[in-house]
């Protein structure tokens, strides 16, 4: 007989499961965390390598000569920008036309749901300017994009200057097989979103783009704010934690090594001493920064919005810090020229390398096959708990009174549905109320709109904590032993499915939520000490996880902040999350409010079952 069909063996297995449930769960949790920390250990990672045959190695000859002229153009741009007080559209159009590109503009306007205090904008109106360099001999079926944002003040002038310098140089070459689009977007992400929507003719906030260059194969966004730089930083994380194909990062790294420019990721340089403690902690810090950035679900550069359209994109930032060896604009121009020549050789979209990975340093990576078991071990805990509860529910209850057993099933379903519905309604309230009632909040309280939204969100969140007491009073009397077990089974399975789906799309978000919510799900019952468990549950709730993540993120970036500043940062993170959702379609805010928060409320319900 088989293992599971033999009743004796089955009983033995089940008793093993129920006896050892807690120890196995603890072991799994420790193993999951240890596996995750071990990912940054260099012998467990792989060196990056170019997977795409068509891109080959870095054997091109870069000949870009005009770095100084590019910087001069940048200064002109900055002067015109100051004069017009925004984007100097006519000057840009004239300059691009002089360089031989086909120039077009795109207007867009957008009203945010509430004012954005970080960037101080509410009703945004702007123009994107883009010039298309047509490939001399190729049909107009494919395109590459080079973009630089037009930022207020003194930022990114050199980026626009370099973009125009490269445009002039590229125009004189005959080996382009794809059209190259040079884009200067206003109001960074909002402008980029409008341009992408206009280019792909999807739901637009601006006008459609008149002229296209075919389907975009790859895009690079440039952020350069100083004439001389010491290192180049690569930013990969995009909207909803999506990452570009690893080949793009490999290409960047290969060219950095060839030309001899210092390259960093997450602002951190690579170290060679992986076997020392400080070397390992450096790698862990780099990886954790990537995890944090990916979990936030916001695009960390203008490239982040391209990824949704299956266009591999990355942002290259020039950093000027206190190092001895300086790189000038000509060298950066050569690096970009080399990268674009290699991208020109592509025959299909980048697809040979990984789409899901973590990078503890620029030359090492961990692929999804290696990091998923860390999450899997945490998910196993939930499944073990579910099995344990199922076993407990299947054993027939002691028959003290005969009458009780008949009414059980009906009351069971009702006592199960009510917490579910109420939790989800609270979630919906948390999702919708802050934005809807901001005017009312502003009338009654002396706060600005942004603060109103955020504080309403926190208020609804805290109000949800008071619900369980009321639910039960409503239901007539106390709940039963059966009842809370069924509810917990449903909640645990619900959490497992939710976290699993999240981890597939955005591993970092799924893992961080799992780290805090899985212990909650595992240990909570009505019989644990109430006050202590309530405290732990609140600490491990999604909002507090966010608060701790904010402090942790600042620590990782070596810019630790005080509690006051941390709290303000936390509030601004919430408002940014809501804005990201309404502007670009980021899924973190609806996920947390509509799915994760109700799930956590279910566990809160179970705690206060009696």
């Amino acid at each position, binding site marked *: 007989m088989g293992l599971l069909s033999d009743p004796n063996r089955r009983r033995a297995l089940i008793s093993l499961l129920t006896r050892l449930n807690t120890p196995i769960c603890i072991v799994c949790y420790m193993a999951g965390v240890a596996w995750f920390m071990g990912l940054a250990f260099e012998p467990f990672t792989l060196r990056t390598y170019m997977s795409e*045959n*068509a891109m*080959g*190695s870095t*054997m*091109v*000859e870069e000949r870009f000569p005009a770095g100084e002229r590019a910087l001069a153009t940048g200064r002109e741009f900055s002067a015109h920008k100051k004069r017009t007080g925004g984007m100097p559209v006519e000057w840009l159009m004239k300059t691009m036309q002089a360089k031989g590109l086909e120039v077009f503009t795109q207007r867009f306007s957008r009203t945010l749901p509430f004012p954005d205090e970080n960037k101080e904008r509410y009703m945004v109106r702007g123009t994107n300017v883009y010039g298309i360099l047509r*490939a*001399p*001999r*190729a049909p107009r079926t494919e395109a590459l994009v080079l973009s630089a944002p037009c930022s207020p003040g003194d930022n990114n002038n050199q980026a626009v200057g370099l973009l125009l310098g490269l445009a002039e140089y590229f125009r004189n*070459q*005959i*080996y*382009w*097989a794809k059209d190259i689009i040079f884009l200067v977007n206003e109001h960074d992400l909002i402008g980029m979103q409008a341009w992408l929507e206009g280019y792909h003719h999807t739901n637009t906030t601006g006008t459609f783009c008149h002229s296209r260059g075919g389907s975009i194969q790859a895009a690079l966004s440039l952020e350069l704010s100083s004439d001389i730089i010491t290192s180049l930083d690569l930013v990969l994380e995009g909207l909803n934690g999506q990452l570009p194909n690893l080949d793009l990062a490999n290409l960047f790294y290969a060219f950095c090594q060839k030309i001899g420019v210092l390259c960093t990721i997450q602002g951190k340089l690579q170290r060679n001493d992986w076997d020392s403690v400080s070397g390992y902690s450096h790698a862990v810090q780099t990886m954790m920064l990537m995890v944090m950035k990916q979990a936030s679900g916001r695009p960390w550069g203008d490239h982040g919005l391209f990824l949704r359209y299956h266009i591999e994109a990355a942002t290259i930032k020039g950093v000027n810090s206190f190092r001895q060896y300086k790189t000038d604009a000509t060298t950066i121009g050569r690096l970009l020229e080399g990268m674009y*020549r*290699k991208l*020109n*050789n592509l*025959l299909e979209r980048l697809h040979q390398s990984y789409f899901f990975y973590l990078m503890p340093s620029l030359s090492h990576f961990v692929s999804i096959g290696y990091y998923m078991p860390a999450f899997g071990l945490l998910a196993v805990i939930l499944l073990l708990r579910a099995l344990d509860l199922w076993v407990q529910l299947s054993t027939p209850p002691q028959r003290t009174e005969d009458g009780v057993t008949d009414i059980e099933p009906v009351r069971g379903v009702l006592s199960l549905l009510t917490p579910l519905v109420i939790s989800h309604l609270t979630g919906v309230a948390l999702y919708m109320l802050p934005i809807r009632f901001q005017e009312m909040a502003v009338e009654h309280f002396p706060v600005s709109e942004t603060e109103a939204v955020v504080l309403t969100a926190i208020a609804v969140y805290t109000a949800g904590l008071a619900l369980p007491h009321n639910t039960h009073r409503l239901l007539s009397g106390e709940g039963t032993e059966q009842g809370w077990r069924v509810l917990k089974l449903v909640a645990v399975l619900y959490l497992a499915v939710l976290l699993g789906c999240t981890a597939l799309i955005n591993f970092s978000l799924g893992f961080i939520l799992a780290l805090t919510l899985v212990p909650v799900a595992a240990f909570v019952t009505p019989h644990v000490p109430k006050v202590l468990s309530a405290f732990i549950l609140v600490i491990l709730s999604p909002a507090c996880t966010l608060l701790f993540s904010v402090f942790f993120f600042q620590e990782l970036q070596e810019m630790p902040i005080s509690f006051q500043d941390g709290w303000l940062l936390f509030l601004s993170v919430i408002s940014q999350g809501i804005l990201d959702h309404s502007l670009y379609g980021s899924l973190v805010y609806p996920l947390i409010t509509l799915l994760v928060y109700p799930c956590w409320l279910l566990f809160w319900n179970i705690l206060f079952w009696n």
Partner: protein
Amino acid sequence: MYFLLVYMYIKNHVYMFPDLLGCHGKCRRYLFCCFQDRAGQFFSSGHTNNWAVLVCTSRFWFNYRHVANTLSVYRSVKRLGIPDSHIVLMLADDMACNHRNPKPATVFSHKNMELNVYGDDVEVDYRGYEVTVENFLRILTGRLPPSTPRSKRLLSDDRSNILIYLTGHGGNGFLKFQDSEEISNVELADAFEQMWQKRRYNELLFIIDTCQGASMYERFYSPNLMALASSQVGEDSLSHQPDLAIGVHLMDRYTFYLLEFLEDIHPASKTNMNDLFKVCPKSQCVSTPGHRTDLFLRDPGSVLITDFFGSVRKVELTMETINLTDPIDAESGELQKEMHTYADQLPVSEIIHQKPKQKDWHPPDGFILGLWTLILLVFFQTYGVKHLKHIF
């Protein structure tokens, strides 16, 4: 025939050559004997015409070097005298006019851009997607539809020496065509056997420049085949040097050194196959080139490079009259006669006089079905009808 023409020419214009030989009588008699002997040799060289089939099987810009390989062999072959009408050139992709080529209309073999192997008068017979395994085998065996133009046919006969050059990406026992199909060494060997049986070649030289190229000639079994490969089984053939301005590798090592070797050959050179075997030793090629001569009847040392790579007419000038009364008695006469027996395509005599074979007797089909039904019924009767409901 040529000999007679020359003789006639000289006879008519003998006043132009007053003292060409300028010897005494003794000398004359000696030379006369030499010529008599060498007349036999003159007429017994096997081939009268040369063909070349040059194939590049890979496409895409990063396989620039395979096209450059094929074009450099094409160039040598044309320079040494084989005309375009006798060359079948198959290129799977167009590198010269590729959008990514910074020097359009050229294909270079060396990074200093010394040699443009594309030239002015390249005639490509099979281009782009026409280079398939099926087309290649049809060319070799001659089974082409009647509408195929002459430039796309291999119109060789039993006195043709054929050079076949293949390059691309290959593995152990196969060669990849166009990233979508493969030709195996067995198929190739069978195609050559078909060629032999249809008397489509006199001698055939097969050169292949791919990874593990030696595996492609392992299975040959037809006579008069000589094969060269750029690497042994388990070894990769490496590319030579990249050109940074163009951005790709320009040629493969073996063909690069082969081209260098062939540039020194002129139509009258007497270099033989043993020198060709020495091209690109391991120190230059990193892989070990191999060759196979066991199926070849002549000694490789006596085979000239121009027997395959060029189209050379033999001309002997003489002032003497020569009596061609004795039949030419070549040493390899009997062997050749044996190898040239006509293989029976359809052994009619065997078929007519054959007795029918004793087939094994099988019981009729219905009988077996009935037997199984009976077995099932007996089974269910014994073990109870209630089991039947599980089936129906």
